[in-house]
Structure formats: C-alpha cells, structure tokens
C-alpha cells in the first residue's frame, strides 16, 4: 500500500486506460464486462483515498515521469477535483452492474466488447480531465472522452443515434477547438501550460494585455459551455441522450457534463479568478441570464416532450442551468449550491435514466403513451423514479432541496429577491413534467402491451434503488455533499482576487 500510495493520482487514469486496451483485445462481451466492472469498482477506492488524503493533508502534486512542473505534466488533486473524482468513479461503480443486461439486450454481441472498451476510454478521459493540472493535457483527455462518447452514442439501435452522434461530433469538435484556442492565447500570454503556473503569471499579462486575457477567457468559456450544454449551446444534448444506448445515457448524463462544469469552475476560480477580478466582468451576469433561460426554456420543452428519455435530457439542460447559476452567483452559498447540485443531480439523473433503461429493457419503449400503468407492473423501478423525480423538483427531504436551498441563499447574499422567486417558479415547471410521467405511470390502467412487464433483474434493480435512496439520504445527511462543497467553495471564494 505504501508503495502504491504516492502513485494514486496517475493510477486513477492509467488503470482504466490499460483496461480499455485489454477490453479491445478481448472481443467477448462477458469478459469485457468483467474487466470493466473490476476497473470501475477499483476507481472509487482510489478516489476516496485521494480525497481523504487531500482533506487532511492538503493538495497532492504528482509529477509525471519525474519532470517537475511547469515543464513536465503535473497531476494535481485538491478538494475540488478530489470531490469530482469520487463522484465520477462512484457513478461508474454503481452503474456498471446495470450495464450488463442492458448492453446485452441493446447491442449486437460483436459490439459489446468494443462498447466496454469505449466506456473505459471515456472513464479515462473524464478522470484525466479532473485529475490533471495541465491545461493542454486537459484538452487531450477532453478529446479522449469525447471521441469515445461519440462511439458510445452511435452504437444506439435507433437510427437517429447516428445523426445525433454526428452532430455531437461536429459541435464537440468546435467546442474543443474553442477551448484549445483559449489555451493557445493563455500560452502566448504566459508561456506556460501548467495551471498553477498560469494563475501566478496571468496577473502580469492582465496588466499589459487585458483584451487578450479576455479573449482567452471568452474562448474557454464558450468552448466549455458547448461541452457542458449551457443554453443555447445545448441542442446536441437531447438527441444524443435520447437515442444512445441506455447505459451510455446513464453514464454521460451523470458524469460527462459534470466534469466539464468542473473544468469551467477550475478556470474561473483557480486560474483566472486568482489574478483578475472576473466577477467585475459581465461574464457572470451573462452566465446567470443563460442559466435562467436554461432553467425555464428547457423545462418548458420537457413539459411537452413525449419520449421520456428526451424529456429527462431537456430536464438535464435545465438542471445544468441551476449549477451554472451557482457559478454565476460566485458567492459562498451560491457556489456551494452549484457544487452540491453537481453531485445531487448526477445521482438523481442517473437513477431516473436507469429506471427508464429498465423500462426499456422490459417493454422496449420509453414513449409516454406506451407507459400507462407501468407503475403497477414495475413498482420498485417506478417508485425509484418517483423518488428521484421528487429530487428533481426539489421537494424537501430530497437532495434537490439542499441544492436549491443553497442557491436561494446565494441569491439572497446578492440581494436578488427576484432570483429566489425564479428558482422556485422553475421548480414548479419540474412539478409539471415529472407529474405527467407519474400520472401516466401510476394512475392509468395498464395497457395490454405492458401486461408482461415486471421489475428488472437485480443487477439493474439494485443500482436504481441505491441511487434513489441516495437522493433521499443526501436530503437529510449533507456532511459529504454540502459539507465538502461548502469547504471547497470557501477555499475557491477565498482565493479570488
């Protein structure tokens, strides 16, 4: 253990990368699954060990290949990304058992091993973005995760999956390009790619060439906004989520956008924020406005949506709005709310998409009109959906309430009463779109088409129930969500200029 301990940061990335290579060689779905499962279950152990180490002993710096920063690539774990590492790896670990049956049903046998290969690559990329302390290295991992994501989406049975994947590919590439242009600007200005180093040098650049710094900030913001699906750059997301295989949607909705949000927070609060007062720039106001637009417009679209997966995808866009709202507020309570919603939303959305995956597994459709009375046939699945749905609304007693509580407090700190009102009002739209599904699922008589349906096998059911239970648990016990997020937010806000 002591021999492994110093290398934990790099193991977090290398193990899934090697796993992906192996999975590609295996060629058999079952062995691919076993490998992915083993890797996925190992990841949270490393992540939790890292987070505990960071919380007690401060940030960890790991020099790749022994090259010291700023010349070599540095992996740097602090409370912020330790928190995200735990989230991403836990979602992978909890969701993995679900994938077995779901992938076996939805994909052809010859594709299955490749699917697990892509999943592990995607995991590599996401964990890499999180753990790295190097701006260009983050771009590389961003591309690794994106490219594997395109494949994972394109493997969907629905033919529209191909077009969605293609659109995502174009948009994702544009986003990555914008991001790398931003990094290019930064490199020109500071001569460094190491994040800590950049933050130290940016002050001088700001004094001499403020407009170039702003251009860098704008490019990074727009590039990442595209990847995290901030309104109005979200249009690739609903189709990608709706037509991808069930497990892809579960995994991506809970992790991919969240990791990009992390990267945005990293840039705002620990790179730019340290040397320039970005809160004085209109960028925060723009983000608040766009977040509000997302919260309302995407929620309203969800109200009218017939395909439940697509409805949940639009709801994701809206929920991302809550998170970016917290970033835009940029005060202690608001940022805590945004950070805590990263976790809470990941857990509840995974539960929701999983229960729809289970429904698809049993009845082969997730169109609302075909789901009449599904609650009576699949009671546990739909009970979990109901609980997580309440979380989405933000009912007290669920984790969603905690997030919104902090966001509301953040709005208070700013003295924006109207914003508190808008947060509550947008939750009411969630009542409508969640309520629509609940009404159909529980109140209608089961149609003959779903007469044979029943709760899915335990490998699917247990993850669903666990995640739904987490929604309730974190509604009451917030030490590991709001507690850690509060500490992180305090450090971030405290470090701002």
């Amino acid at each position: 253990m002591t021999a492994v301990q110093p290398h934990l940061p790099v193991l977090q990335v290398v193990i899934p990368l090697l796993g992906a290579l192996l999975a590609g060689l295996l060629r058999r779905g079952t062995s691919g699954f076993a490998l992915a499962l083993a890797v996925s279950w190992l990841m949270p152990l490393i992540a939790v060990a890292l987070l505990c180490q960071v919380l007690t002993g401060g940030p960890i710096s790991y020099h790749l290949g022994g090259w010291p920063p700023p010349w070599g690539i540095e992996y740097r774990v602090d409370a912020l990304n330790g928190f995200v590492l735990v989230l991403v790896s836990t979602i992978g670990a909890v969701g993995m058992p679900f994938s077995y049956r779901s992938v076996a049903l939805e994909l052809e046998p010859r594709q299955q091993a490749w699917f697990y290969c892509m999943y592990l690559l995607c995991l590599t990329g996401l964990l890499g973005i999180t753990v790295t302390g190097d701006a260009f290295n983050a771009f590389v991992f961003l591309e690794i995760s994106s490219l594997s994501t395109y494949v994972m989406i394109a493997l969907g049975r629905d033919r529209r999956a191909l077009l969605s994947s293609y659109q995502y590919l174009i948009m994702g590439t544009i986003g990555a390009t914008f991001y790398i242009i931003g990094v290019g600007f930064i490199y020109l200005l500071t001569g460094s790619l190491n994040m800590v180093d950049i933050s130290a040098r940016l002050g001088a650049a700001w004094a001499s060439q403020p407009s170039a710094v702003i251009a860098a900030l704008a490019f990074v913001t727009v590039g990442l906004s595209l990847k995290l699906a901030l309104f109005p750059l979200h249009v690739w997301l609903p189709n990608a989520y709706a037509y991808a295989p069930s497990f892809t949607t579960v995994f991506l909705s809970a992790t991919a956008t969240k990791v990009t949000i992390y990267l945005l927070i990293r840039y705002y609060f620990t790179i730019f924020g340290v040397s320039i007062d970005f809160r004085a720039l209109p960028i925060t106001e723009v983000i608040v406005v766009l977040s509000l637009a997302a919260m309302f417009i995407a929620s309203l679209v969800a109200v009218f949506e017939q395909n439940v997966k697509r409805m949940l995808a639009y709801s994701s866009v809206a929920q991302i709005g809550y998170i970016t709202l917290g970033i835009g507020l940029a005060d202690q309570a608001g940022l805590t709310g945004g950070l805590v919603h990263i976790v809470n939303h990941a857990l509840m959305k995974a539960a929701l998409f999983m229960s729809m995956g289970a429904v698809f597994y049993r009845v082969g459709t997730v169109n609302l009109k075909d789901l009449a009375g599904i609650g009576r046939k699949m009671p546990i699945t739909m009970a979990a959906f109901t609980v997580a749905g309440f979380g989405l609304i933000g009912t007290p007693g669920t984790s969603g309430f905690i997030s919104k509580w902090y966001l509301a407090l953040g709005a208070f700190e700013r003295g924006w009463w109207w914003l508190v009102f808008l947060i509550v009002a947008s939750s009411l739209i969630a009542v409508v779109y969640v309520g629509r599904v609940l009404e159909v699922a529980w109140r209608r008589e089961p149609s003959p088409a779903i007469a044979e349906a029943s709760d899915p096998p335990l490998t699917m059911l247990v993850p669903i129930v666990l995640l739904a239970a987490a929604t309730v648990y974190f509604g009451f016990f917030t030490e590991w969500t709001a507690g850690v997020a509060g500490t992180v937010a305090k450090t971030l806000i405290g470090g701002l200029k």
Partner: protein
Amino acid sequence: MAGELSPGLILIVGALLVPFLRGRLRGAYMLALPVLAAWQLLSLPYGSFGGIEFLDMPLVTLRVDRLSFVFGLIFLMAAFLGIVYSLHLDDNVQHVAGLVYAGSAVGAVFAGDLVTLFIYWEGTAIASVFLIWARREERAYRAGLRYLVIQVGSGVLLLAGVIIQFRQTGSIAFDHLGTQTLAGVLIFLAFGIKCAFPLLHNWLQDAYPEATVTGTVMLSAFTTKLAVYALARGYAGTEILVPIGAAMAAFPIFYAVIENDLRRVLAYSLNNQLGFMVVGIGIGTELAINGTVAHAFCHILYKALLFMSMGAVLFRTGTVKGSELGGLYKSMPWTTGFCIVGAASISGFPLFSGFISKAMIITAAMDGGYFWTWIVLLFASAGVFHHSGIKIPYFAFFSHDSGKRCAEAPGNMLVAMAVTAGLCILIGVYPRPLYDILPYSVDFLPYTLEHVVTQLQLLMFSALAFTVLMRTGIYPPEMRRTNLDFDWVYRRLLRSAALAVGGLARDAWKEFTKVIKHAARGAAHVVAHHHGPDGIMARTWPTGVMAFWTTVMLAAYLILTYL
C-alpha cells in the same frame, strides 16, 4: 441518541415495516407503535433534545414542554384509537399513510425550530393525501389533489417565512413570532391555511368527506389541531385572531345546517369548533390558552367519535346522506349510543367533555371584556347543538325509517368508539387529570352553578324551540322535511341576500376568470408554439445553426466585456 428519539419518528420509521406484516401480527405491531411512542414521551423530561446541525443551522428536533406535551399526548391517543378503528382493513396504503401522517403531526408538535417544523409540516400534507386517495374513486382523487395543492401551498408559505426570518434575525427558533414582521405574516398565513381560517377553509369541507371511512377519522384529529398548536405557540395573544375565530365559529353553522352529507356536516362543525380555539389563542390569557388546549384535547376525541360513528354508517350502508338514512338505531344500537355521546360532548352538555373545555374559553372571553365575541360564541354553541347535537344522530339513526337494515359496526370499530366515548364521559365527569397537564396551572371550576345553568339554558332553549315547532305543527309530519323547514329561516333569508350578492360576485368572477383564462390560453399557446414538439426550442437544429450560435455566444462575451 436513542434516548432522545422523537416519538413522531417512532411512528414514521415503524410504519415502514407495516407492509411486510400480515393479519393479527400487523394489527398488534401497529397498536404497539403509538404505545411505544407514548412511553418514550412519558420517559422524557421537559427540555430540548436531538440537536443537530443542518445546513449551518442548529436544529432542535425534540422540544418537550407543557404545551407540546399535551398535544403530543392527545395525538398519540388519537393515533391509537384511529388504528383500532381501522384494524379490520387490509389496505397497507392506508395503514402506512395513517402512521406516517400521525408521526409527522407528533414530530411537528415537538419541533423546537421552524425548519424541523416545516419538514414535518410537509410530511403531514403528503402522507395525509393518501388517506383521501385510498378511496380509489375519481372524485376522491380530484379532491385529494386540490387538498394537496393547498397543503403544499401552506408549506411553501411557511418555508418562505422561515427563510426570511432566518435572513433577518439569524434565528430559526420556534417561539413567539407575532405578526409585526413580513416573516411573521407569511408564517401566520401558512398556519391559517392549515387551521382553515374563514375564506381559507374550503379545502377542509372539500376533502374530509371524500376520504376513506377510517381516513376521515385520522384527518379530523391531526392537521387542523397541529395548526392550532402552532398558532398557540407562535401567535398567542394576537388580537386579530379573536374576530377571525369568532367568524370561524359562527359562519360554518349555516352551511352545516343546509348540508345533506352528514360527514360534510361534521367537517363544517369541525371548522366551527376550531373557531373557539382560535378565539382562545387570540385572547391569549392563561385561562384562554388553557381553554384552547383543553378544548383541542376534548375536541379531538369527540370529533373522532362522531366521524367514527358516521364512518360506521357509511361502511355498513354505503351512504351518509341525511335524506337517505333514518331509523338505523334498530340495526346499529351501539353505534347510535356512541354517536349520542359524541353529540352530547360537542354540544357541551354538563358531564360531557365539551362542557369543561368550552366553558373555559367562553369565560375567558367574558373576563377579557370581549362582549360581542362572547355573544357570538354563545350563538355558536347553540348552533353546534343544533347541527351536531340534534341533526347528526337524528337523521342517521332516528327520523323516519329509511327501511335500511344492516349489521352493527365491526367489532374493532365498536371498541374504538367505546373507548373514545368512555374518555369523553370520563373527562366530562372528572376533568382534573386533564387540567393538571395544561400549560398553566388551573384554578378553574367548570361545575359552578352559573356555568351549568347558562349552558343548560342555552341547550334547553334550543331543544325547546325545536320541540315546540314540531308540536305546534309548524313542521309537517314527515320528518325528512323537518330539516328543510327548519332551515327555512336561514335558507330564504340568507339565500335571497346571498343570491343578490352572490349573483353580482359570480358575474364579476366569471368575467374575471374569462379574462384570466383567455390570457392563460394565449400564454399556453405561445409556450406550446415555441416549446411544443415542433417548436423552435424543441426541434433539432441543423448543425450549421448550432455552430452559428456558438459564434454568437463568443461575440456576445467579447463585445459585452470590451464595452
């Protein structure tokens, strides 16, 4: 930690096991829960426990003092009796919902801070609606939905008030609040909705009669009395409560008299009884608060008893319409007897529980110099006697024989009613134990010559009027029409006045809703146009358009920043 467990949580957590049990075991287990909770309550000394830190706020999840103790005790008694009454059921939805509902109410009573109060407050709302939905009829479903909206609305107001209170004072302690601040007003309204203040009351008469046979018994005990407790805690001595309470005590009488659904009659009379309590809180003297608490205590018992007896009738005959019932005393003699005990208690006959508590409030009104309130309360007392004391038993069990023949109520219902009736009489005859646990020390003697004579006069004149009118043949011989004729005064006078005012109001309302509906439809159309399946916001944009927007966003950031 186990030593500081809230008695409410025992019920709530205990409820989760109920679906896994069957038959007698389940019955015994459910009965054990309130007993266990009561034992826990009795073993707790006065003080604050269960402090936890939640979202940077110190919560006091368990505060036991004289006020919360009485309410906690009666809630647990009501829960126990309600469970006995529902033992014959094999419906886990109702069992679990009933227990969670009772547990939330108990938990709310022991909440030492507003956030804990809010959580349990919403718990009562959500759990109780299942007692309405469990009837599994479309009507009940709709009524339940309306009920839920109102109850959650009350919760939202409470939450808003709590947040403002917290921001302004930094404290979330649940003590005297007062209506001087915005937070105080919002919380006051939240309590008021749950307490069924006039104009905020309709959910009660709407929903309670639609609930299941056993559900209504539970509902009648907790929601409104929780609000009474909360008002007594936060707004004792708030002057505005006196006229509100007086109005509450008076106006439902008219509705109760003309209503045919006997459970709805009881719902109106519930409203009217709450009026007495609200007046007591408004007066706010020691005697008045004692009276309010004592009245809530007695009221929970006799109102539950009345709802139990009507529930038994509904259970056996399938209806509680006054016009379809009558003569049931032959089939259900025991139920008849218990119903009469309940009716005597609510009417305030000496030696029954209503007398010893109502007298305290009325005396407090007199002592406090509220002459007109006193008059209204006397009038309300007479009214109660008419609609609950005479009308309910008369139409259900006597009146003209409807020809319905049914079995006596099931054994468990009879036991529940017998125990409740016994308690009503016991408290009426021997009020000392109740007086001893009231918030303030009691030196009030209910059985003075003055009290007894006043009350008897009131009741006798009511009864006399009724009898004289019958004897002199002003009433037609057919009993069914007695009710209608007796209503004549109210209905003609009130109705012609009400029709005139109501007609105007209705037209205005119609126009108003037309405008609103039109606007809403227009707005919905616009929303659907843009957000509906083919709307601009829901369509899949061409890739080029997406790329274009990316550029727009970049330009927006740059331009805004450079400006």
